[in-house]
């Protein structure tokens, strides 16, 4: 399931032709593409440094003058072919980050103009055993509840590789009431206190201590005071929805960051006129 969600989330990021719903599970492709990548299948796992054979089928009746396969950066372009069989060799860079990458076949038809296939995703995963894990940053001190921060996970698999979004890596939080972590390593401060984020891959575990300041109501920048700097945090997000699960800027918990929150913050200011300390 996690694998699938990651894949769909990557599809949402890269595919121009697809529209994903808020649930991230519905993919709508507009129109029927006259080109189709038949191999590798979407979701296929490949390794850094590997050469992948990509096969493209052309719908009958489409005359083409040239075709290439385009891989999401840093994979790049294949060689161009002017006639069938459309079988391409695509090199996966050895220094690539682990995760999902899109491939699209693109062709020029002498009469029909440019043609493009639906994108497929390949899962680039390290080839070999992960011998050690390193997480950056090593500790996280959040400024306020609702703040988000990504972590970067580096694994030693013969050489160092960024495996933050690898399907081999899993994340968990000791106390989701203090900090929650997503499947792609985004940590969100959810409440005051201290906790630990665990990162696991191939039986190896790394941990990141996380602290979230005690909730001084209205102290949105975590400096222990409530002043105009905190007011500016609200004004910068005026009339936007609050982020879930808890957004310290939404002081009246009505689900929206608005002028009422700005006035409530004024009443919480540590100094008269909300003066900055």
């Amino acid at each position, binding site marked *: 399931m996690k694998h699938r969600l990651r894949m769909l989330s990557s599809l949402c990021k890269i595919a121009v032709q697809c529209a994903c719903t808020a649930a991230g599970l519905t993919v709508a492709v507009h129109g029927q593409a006259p080109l189709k990548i038949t191999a590798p299948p979407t979701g296929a796992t490949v390794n850094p440094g590997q050469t992948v054979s990509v096969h493209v089928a052309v719908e009958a009746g489409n005359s083409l003058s040239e075709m290439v396969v385009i891989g999401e950066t840093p994979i790049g372009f294949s060689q161009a072919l002017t006639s069938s069989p459309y079988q391409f060799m695509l090199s996966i860079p050895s220094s690539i980050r682990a995760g999902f990458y899109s491939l699209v076949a693109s062709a020029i038809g002498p009469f029909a103009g440019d043609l493009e296939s639906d994108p497929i995703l390949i899962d680039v995963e390290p080839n070999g055993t992960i011998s050690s894990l390193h997480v950056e940053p090593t500790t996280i001190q959040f400024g306020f509840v609702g703040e988000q921060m990504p972590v970067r996970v580096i694994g030693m698999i013969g050489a160092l590789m960024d495996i933050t979004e690898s399907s081999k890596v899993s994340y968990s939080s000791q106390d989701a009431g203090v900090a929650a972590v997503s499947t792609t390593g985004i940590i969100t401060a959810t409440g005051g206190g201290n906790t630990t984020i665990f990162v696991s891959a191939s039986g190896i575990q790394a941990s990141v201590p996380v602290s979230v300041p005690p909730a001084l109501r209205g102290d949105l920048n975590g400096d222990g005071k409530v002043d105009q700097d905190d007011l500016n945090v609200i004004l910068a997000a005026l009339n936007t929805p609050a982020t879930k699960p808890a957004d310290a800027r939404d002081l*009246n918990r009505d689900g929206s960051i608005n002028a009422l929150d700005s006035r409530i913050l*004024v009443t919480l200011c540590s100094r008269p006129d909300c003066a900055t300390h």
Partner: protein
Amino acid sequence: MERNILGYLGAAVLLLASGTEGFGDTITISLTPSSQTALLGSMVNMTLEIGGLGDHTAPSLGVFDLNLDFNPSILSFDNAVFGDPILSDQLDPTGGGNTITFASASSGSVELFDLSLDSANDLNNLQEPTFVLASLTFDAVDVGTSQLVLTINTLGDADGNPLSADVENANIDVNASAVPEPFAAGLIPAAMTLVAVRLRRGNRLKNSRRRLLNER
């Protein structure tokens, strides 16, 4: 018996009257004047007012965030000056310049925001019940009628609690700066001149012909 009934009715009326006092006035945000005419190319002034707040007591106004929509093909937003021109800014009754304001305009709409940084006590004790929130200026850019429609994004009291208010909108008629002379009317003097010239010429020809015949 009749006397008793009348007595009860009187008491009931008195109770009702005293009971409604505690509810206070309805808060109203209005555009003044509600209707006005302007010449094409001129500037049009309008005030945004609030009434029905507590008279030096709660509820006072601590913040407002309003949208004002208009027809951009007829009016163009020029500027907004926050505060009452006579009573000064009633969201800053202590006079320390303690407000955050902005007027953010886009085509056909302007967002008006004013946040008081004064304490809730100062607002409740010093604020007037009715005052001007902002003076607005538009440019009349084309002939026609534009409605000015207010939408309350947020209206909050001194403690940041929501306030509800009635809204009174306005409209502005923009007329052409000079009334053009109708085309046909403009031709009348020319036509009359032409007729006069023709008549005179006709008379002259007739006289010449008569003179010739007489001579023969």
